[in-house]
């Protein structure tokens, strides 16, 4: 059974179409990477999937008992967060907000679960620290732990490694891969084709002209995949010189 199906989806801002005719399907346990150039509308697509903005046409269906608020979202960082006084613990616990209903405070089980998710992200020792004083990699782990509190089923990650140095990036990818091995479905935006090919099971390549959706193997044989992989290789060679 699929968790999510998008049919003829068009997304954009204020009636202005950025991406059109997107079709894809995500099944339980899969690892979908959304790739495409900067400014191609990947984040807009993700926001539309989450229901943060309306689709211009088409639809995204949540299936197999997956509810709209049962997805864990890791957004890109905002300006507000840079000077926000909040402890790691407070932020991780806020992941439960969708499950609170009218209860004003967190339950004991929720606090315990928050602790477990912090353990999973190796940030228990940071629990009382101030978020804005952490390194970029630590901050992303905090937000990932928060997303885990929101959902154990599907995580939507918007460029989780942007701005991180190579070692931290590799750690972050390993962490996400381990979550995927535990059965959590991952949908991730990335412009790092190398990592995409290594970890993803499925790939959605978006572009203002046409889109590609298929398994990783199909992608590598497709023209989009070939060009993207080739460009990445050139970039790597350029980096070595």
């Amino acid at each position, binding site marked *: 059974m699929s968790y999510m199906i998008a049919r003829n989806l068009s997304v954009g801002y204020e009636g202005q179409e950025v991406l059109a005719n997107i079709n894809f399907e995500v099944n339980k346990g899969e690892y979908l990477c959304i790739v495409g150039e900067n400014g191609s509308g990947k984040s807009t697509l993700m*926001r539309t999937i*989450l*229901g*943060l903005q309306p689709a211009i046409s088409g639809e995204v269906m949540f299936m197999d008992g997956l509810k*709209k*608020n049962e*997805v864990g*979202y890791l*957004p890109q960082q*905002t300006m*507000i*967060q840079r*000077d*926000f*006084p*909040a*402890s790691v*613990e*407070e*932020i991780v*616990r*806020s*992941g439960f*907000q*969708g499950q*609170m209903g009218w209860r*004003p*405070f*967190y339950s004991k089980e929720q606090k315990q679960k928050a602790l477990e998710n912090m353990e999973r992200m190796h940030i228990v020792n940071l629990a*009382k*620290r*101030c978020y804005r*004083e952490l390194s970029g990699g630590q901050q992303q782990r905090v937000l990932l732990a*928060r997303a885990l509190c*929101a959902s154990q089923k599907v995580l*939507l990650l918007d460029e989780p490694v942007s701005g991180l140095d190579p070692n931290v990036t590799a750690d972050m990818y390993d962490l996400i891969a381990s979550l995927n091995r535990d059965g959590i479905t991952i949908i991730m935006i990335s412009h790092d084709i190398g990592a995409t090919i290594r970890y993803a099971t499925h790939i959605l390549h978006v572009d203002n002209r046409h889109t590609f959706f298929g398994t990783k193997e199909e992608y590598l044989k497709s023209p989009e995949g070939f060009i993207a992989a080739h460009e990445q290789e050139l970039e790597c060679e350029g980096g070595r010189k």
Partner: protein
Amino acid sequence: MNWMEKLSFYFQFPLVRYALIVGVLIALCSSLLGVTLVLKRFSFIGDGLSHVAFGAMAIAAILNIANQTLLILPVTIICAILLLRTGQNAKIKGDAAIAMLSVGALAFGYLVLNVFPTSANVSGDVCSTLFGSMSILTIRKEEVWICIILSILVIAFFVLFYHRIFDVTFDESFARSAGTKVDWYNLLIAVIIAVIIVLAMNLVGSLLISALIIFPALSAMRIFKSFRAVTICSAVISVICALLGMLVSILTGTPVGSTIVAVDVLAFLICYIIGIVGGRG
């Protein structure tokens, strides 16, 4: 008479005790949402609304309404809602809208008070509305009751929705994705701000309200690093400053609003220094 005797002399009057209670409650309420206001870049809305409250007060004065709060409160709440709507749709337009509304209300209020004077001393009335009464003792008994009821409502709201306020302040996108009704909470926050402004107008006057809201929060943010610690600390700072300010004002006869704000500024400087020293240590 030394100052202890002077204080105990004043405390014999019930009016002084009421005034202190009201002052403390207002200070407590206004500090609670300060952190959210500062972080959400809503401080300018607070400033704009206080001018609107002044305009509403002017109209209430010429209409000779006995209980002015009953008119000022709804007008300010409606403007808060309007400002929030425009502010969210387009940033620059929102700024301009607030400037227009606040300066317009200020000018209109002053104009109305001069064209239809209700007392012989218009400039004295205007001055006390803008900068607070010369003495807190002018607060009337029914105002005390309104103050107490509204304060309890504000505090109850804040405690019950404390975590939701944190959620929508820290990360709106995540909150929306988790199904939290962000727009609804923003609206609620704006309404509460309006209530606080109307409340605080009695104490410090409409021009100085923003200070009462943002200074304690900014002070606490210099020292503490978690949302809860900052919130508690800003409430404590605000209450202490208000008490000190009121006592000084009683003893020395200075205007109560500006005295409280002066103490708040002083507290901010102290916290700023503690923050720098503590940060290095």
